[in-house]
């Protein structure tokens, strides 16, 4: 993030808990991050790391109960998204913070044509009449690269392929010209050649429209190609945060390092054997009192078992929540 720029979204100490029959699940534990205007922030983590729950908490999309946002703040345009009344949140969620989900089939309504679904936010939030909304809807479909846009407006979701549906979802999310777009694994359900098309489209749209994007994924390859800055999540916490080149070139957290080593590539040297992160991700039944990666970490020492590391600076724009320093191979002096 350039110094002095006012973040468009500033999240501090977000905590989200699920109340289940077998006790509490602390899905998000003190997550903090900020987002600059026009920035593409990648959020990486495995399933259950809390990356989706974090974003859903911000825009109030988690059903409560069982979910409960226990604390923290999320400042967007001077307002705290976690505290403002639902009515006010509705004027932000959608028109100003758009989102695209993983599965384009379940997020589109099968009984309405896509034209109606793109026009809906335009008429509701932008006060357009039918003709204006339809013209804008066609523009949006053209923007996301759907050929023959005018005619396609009358088609229903099942008449589109997976990649095309995801383009429609992006068009809906962009309808009101949002300041922030949250994309939750938008290419995971797609084939690689289609994924390449969507990634290309997103990069172009971001440059063209200048919005900030939060891109959630478990695929480091996707992140490497698209993000400006990355946060790595593990066990409901941010364990590392850095500009993309720094993160891939100089990863600090043992989890990030292991993750990078377990992923094979289609180019470069081929390792005879894949590196493995042994064990399973943690079960988050309480606020962690120790490092949540300790059981799978090759460098864990005494302190990791009794204290949960906080994020500490590790270079320019780079911070990490770990007591171990890969540069010296020794515990950090903190």
């Amino acid at each position: 993030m350039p110094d002095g720029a006012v973040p468009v979204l500033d999240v501090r100490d977000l905590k989200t808990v699920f109340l289940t029959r077998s006790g509490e699940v602390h899905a998000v534990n003190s997550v903090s991050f900020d987002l600059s205007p026009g920035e593409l922030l990648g959020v990486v983590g495995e399933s259950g790391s809390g990356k989706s729950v974090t974003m859903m908490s911000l825009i109030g999309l988690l059903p409560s109960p069982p979910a409960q946002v226990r604390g923290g703040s999320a400042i967007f345009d001077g307002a705290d998204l976690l505290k403002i009344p639902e009515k006010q949140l509705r004027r932000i969620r959608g028109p100003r913070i758009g989102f695209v989900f993983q599965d384009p089939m379940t997020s589109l309504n099968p009984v309405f044509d896509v034209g109606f679904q793109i026009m809906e936010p335009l008429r509701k939030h932008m006060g357009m009449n039918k003709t204006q909304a339809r013209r804008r809807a066609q523009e949006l479909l053209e923007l996301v690269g759907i050929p023959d846009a005018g005619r396609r407006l009358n088609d229903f979701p099942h008449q589109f392929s997976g990649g095309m549906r995801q383009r429609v979802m992006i068009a809906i999310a962009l309808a009101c010209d949002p300041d922030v777009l949250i994309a939750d694994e938008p290419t995971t359900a797609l084939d690689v050649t289609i994924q390449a098309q969507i990634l290309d489209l997103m990069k172009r749209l971001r440059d063209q429209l200048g919005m900030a994007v939060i891109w959630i994924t478990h695929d480091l390859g996707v992140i490497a190609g698209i993000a400006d800055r990355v946060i790595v999540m593990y066990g409901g916490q941010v364990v590392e945060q850095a500009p993309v080149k720094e993160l891939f070139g100089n990863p600090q957290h043992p989890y990030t390092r292991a993750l990078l080593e377990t992923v094979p590539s289609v180019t470069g040297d081929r390792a005879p054997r894949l590196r493995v992160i042994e064990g399973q991700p943690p079960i988050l039944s309480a606020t962690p009192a120790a490092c949540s990666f300790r059981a799978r970490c090759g460098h864990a020492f005494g302190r990791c078992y009794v204290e949960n590391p906080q994020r500490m600076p590790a270079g320019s724009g780079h911070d990490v929540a770990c007591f171990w320093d890969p540069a010296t191979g020794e515990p950090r002096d903190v």
Partner: protein
Amino acid sequence: MFDAPRKLIEVSGLKIHFPIHGGFLRRRVGQVKAVDGVSFDIVEGETLGLVGESGCGKSTCGRALLRLYDLTEGSIRIDGKEIGDADHATLRRIRPKMQMVFQDPQASLNPRMTLSRIIGEPLDEHTNLGRKEKLARIYELMDAVGLNRSFANRYPHEFSGGQRQRIGIARAIALNPSFIVCDEPIAALDVSIQAQVVNLLEDLQEKFDLTYLFISHDLSMVRHIADRVAVMYLGRVVELTTRDRLYTQPLHPYTEALLSSVPEPDPSLATLRDRVILQGDVPSPANPPRGCNFSTRCPRVMDICHRLDPQSKEVAPGHFVACHLHDPRINEIASEVAAEQEAHQEHPTRRET
């Protein structure tokens, strides 16, 4: 490879077509050509990777190899025995030799059976082991796949995705098979767990002399595990060669595009790379385009591609590719086709056969 490796699986001209029924009387109105003329061999002890996008027919092809579908056409030989037209009793005798690991370990394990019953089921079906011997074998299998023996009486829902996949693998190796079809075995798993399962598969291959058909859409993982790789597009194998050749000098334009679509997990390389981004979507296998199946999306499409379906040719030893670009006789063929079409235009009454 001097001591002529033995071919364990020989597939030739394999076609699997599924009927489409429609209309008021549910009459047959067409067919989905899921696999449309596929030939390849798998030699003993190797891993053949089968890659392609969803809907290209790779899973159908894998399942057909185990005769889980009836063939529309073609032949499949396992260890020299033809199974394409084998009857039920014959298949039952052969099946212990060929097993499958499924994509979704959640859906492929019966939730009401304990782990020991799941792993023991193939033993009940195909062997006459006594209770003690069976339990000993189940423990042996659990050790082999890295499952704690104390889990034997637990149910599938008590396990994580990676552990469930281990159960599926234990079940697959229970009868000492020689050939296993791994149908996207890691697609449903997290990155850090994928590596565990792939390493396990490699260990088992070495230990039990297994031959794998590894079906996946993950090109980087296939590069890791496979010895040779076949690329499928719309029911056809468009390119088949050794791993190193495929990843360093792909010949088919589809393979090139597929490889360049894989996101590079290194930002400094990712921005440098010259990417081929394909336009459009895969056509429907119920209505494939005329000529080459890939002609609708191919960045290097030629006139001939819309007219003539390319045949698979061995362009270098062990390197097969089905593309007009790599056919040395292409100019000859192109002029022949053009002449033929002219003749058609002169005699419009003559019908193409």
